[in-house]
């Protein structure tokens, strides 16, 4: 689960890390109030208006603007709220901005004393450790830095049993070229953000830029945090913060039915039991001349109710020209699934696209018979190869 920037920064603050202060709002009136409040609490005279969407590249896309007084703030908040933000990470359709963050200006004072860094914490699967990745090249895409200046990307591996050690935090601060007060602040900052990463069951904490201010404070100016979905049961407060408007509407609906659905851009819908087989089925569709319209894992209990809900979700996608159902019956019996398909078909009425049902495993023959004798326009198959050929025929 992804957090918005303002939620991520509040989380870091809760764990004791300093942040660029700000208030999230959803209207221009609220923005003005937030700005006044911010001036009172921080003394800031300028404000940064930042679009809150789950995508990077906001600055270049016009989603981050500086306002030097309340009049400008109204104007810029008005421009950003409701805009469709298009960046390389949003795809061509962009993302609607429903919420903005009014943040204090932190780039004050002697400009030559200000430095931007990059810091992130994530899981390194290869070493099975958490890793802190950091660089003096803040404000840029870290992938780009890794490509052009690999020597400027540093890594500190944290043993999960031992946790972050003081010498590691010192090493990071020194490698970032800090000394004096800023060095002490950074050691403390690293410690706090690591605690946030562990405490919140995060799968990613990325702070870019992490700023050394002209008066030697270390603060998070941006924050991107993802929470491990498997840990949401014990991160209830964070789970409640999820902004569902950021998700694909169909995915939210699927989630409410406990179906694992990811929308894609293709023309052949699919419904499969098991994540690996679902991905393999998408591959079969592609090899047969189609493009997968979705990933959909109906899970272990592919009964009539779930099949019907899965059908309805797939059919909402206007791009879908055919549907391939691929079930390997283990504990689930294929005749049950077949009955589910027939019942769902009858309940939905006239399904306008061709359907191919491939049933294999427990009671596969009985399942196939049920489909074949139903009189519905549904093709049946037992071997995966036959299903692939059926898709090919439909696509031709």
């Amino acid at each position: 689960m992804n957090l918005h920037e303002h939620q991520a920064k509040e989380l870091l603050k809760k764990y004791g890390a300093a942040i660029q202060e700000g208030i999230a709002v959803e209207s221009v009136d609220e923005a003005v109030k937030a700005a006044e409040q911010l001036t009172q609490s921080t003394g800031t005279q300028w404000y940064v208006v930042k679009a809150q969407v789950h995508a990077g590249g906001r600055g270049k896309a016009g989603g981050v603007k500086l306002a030097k007084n309340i009049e400008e703030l109204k104007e810029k908040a008005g421009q950003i709220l409701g805009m469709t933000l298009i960046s390389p990470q949003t795809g061509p359709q962009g993302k609607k901005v429903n919420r903005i963050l009014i943040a204090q200006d932190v780039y004050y004072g002697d400009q030559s004393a200000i430095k931007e860094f990059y810091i992130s914490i994530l899981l390194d699967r290869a070493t099975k450790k958490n890793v802190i990745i950091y660089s003096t090249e803040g404000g840029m895409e870290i992938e780009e830095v890794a490509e052009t200046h690999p020597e400027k990307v540093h890594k500190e591996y944290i043993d999960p049993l031992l946790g972050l050690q003081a010498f590691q935090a010192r090493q990071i601060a020194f490698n970032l070229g800090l000394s004096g007060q800023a060095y002490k602040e950074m050691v403390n900052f690293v410690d706090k953000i690591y605690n946030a990463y562990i405490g919140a069951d995060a799968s990613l904490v990325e702070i870019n830029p992490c700023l050394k201010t002209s008066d030697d404070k270390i603060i998070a100016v941006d924050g991107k945090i993802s929470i491990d979905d498997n840990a949401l049961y014990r991160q209830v407060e964070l789970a409640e913060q999820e902004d569902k408007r950021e998700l694909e509407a169909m995915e939210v609906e699927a989630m409410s039915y406990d179906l694992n659905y990811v929308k894609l851009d293709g023309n052949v819908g699919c419904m499969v039991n098991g994540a690996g087989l679902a991905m393999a089925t998408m591959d079969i569709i592609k090899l047969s001349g189609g493009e997968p319209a979705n990933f959909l894992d109906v899970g272990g209990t592919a009964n009539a109710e779930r099949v019907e809900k899965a059908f309805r979700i797939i059919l909402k996608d206007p791009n879908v020209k055919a549907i391939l159902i691929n079930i390997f019956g283990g504990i689930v019996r294929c005749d049950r699934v077949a009955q589910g398909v027939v019942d769902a078909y009858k309940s939905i009425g006239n399904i306008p696209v061709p359907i191919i049902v491939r049933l294999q495993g427990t009671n596969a023959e009985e399942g196939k018979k049920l489909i074949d004798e139903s009189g519905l326009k549904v093709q049946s198959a037992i071997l995966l190869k036959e299903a692939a050929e059926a898709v090919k025929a439909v696509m031709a």
Partner: protein
Amino acid sequence: MSILVNKNSKIIVQGFTGKEGTFHAEQMIAYGTKVVGGVTPGKGGQKHLDLPVYNTVADAVAATGADVSIIFVPPAFAADGIMEAADSGIRVIVCITEGIPVQDMLKAKKAVENSSSILIGPNCPGVITPEEAKVGIMPGFVFKKGRIGIVSKSGTLTYEAADQIVKAGFGVSTAIGIGGDPIIGTTTKEAVELFMNDPETDAIVMIGEIGGSMEADAARWIQENGNKKPVIGFIAGQTAPAGRRMGHAGAIIGGKDDTAEAKMKIMSACGLHVVASPAEIGAEVAKHIK
């Protein structure tokens, strides 16, 4: 001989009296697996499915001599269950549970590494040595005894592969579902190594998916060790978009090296027989077995 489990394995079930544990223990027993008891804290001394229930894994091991454990404990407690099994000297721990938090698994993985146990999973279908022992949730009838080893990240794809192998006229020595999570016990490479050293396995089917570098690591190991047995490979997720989680928590394309395409290229270069379509696994196996 096969690997990991056989007809002499003595198996206990952690989370024995729960719904999942009960259902699958019944299925395992019906298959002929030697289940000797189970563990549910607080229910020690009771009988369940005519078998003894123990409070702790240590008690169960002391009383039954169990060497294999299968875990059906809910996600919040499963990492603890793994560590308990490792601490009690269980040789092979199979964790079926899906949805264990990553930070919990990091600790459990370290605990297993510091013990003499082998962990399979979590979030996996388990291990089956056909006609000897089923320590998992797979449909037993799909697997016929033979000399092809299967290692796979995915459950239903394992069944698919086994079914094609059997329909092509062969059988399975042992099938291992290693699980689809980012942090798992036995890796693809470790499973392949077990099969390479097993005199009853003639060829290996290796099924992977997007995410991580396990398949590439295994492929390189196979080449460095002289490609002693034919390995047939398939990677699911050739059409998966980057950055989106595809069901399995580990199935997310992170960098350019963990795409299906990159993995397939490395596997081919290392002398593995890679199929683009999952429908071709059985036919490809037939090509490489005399």
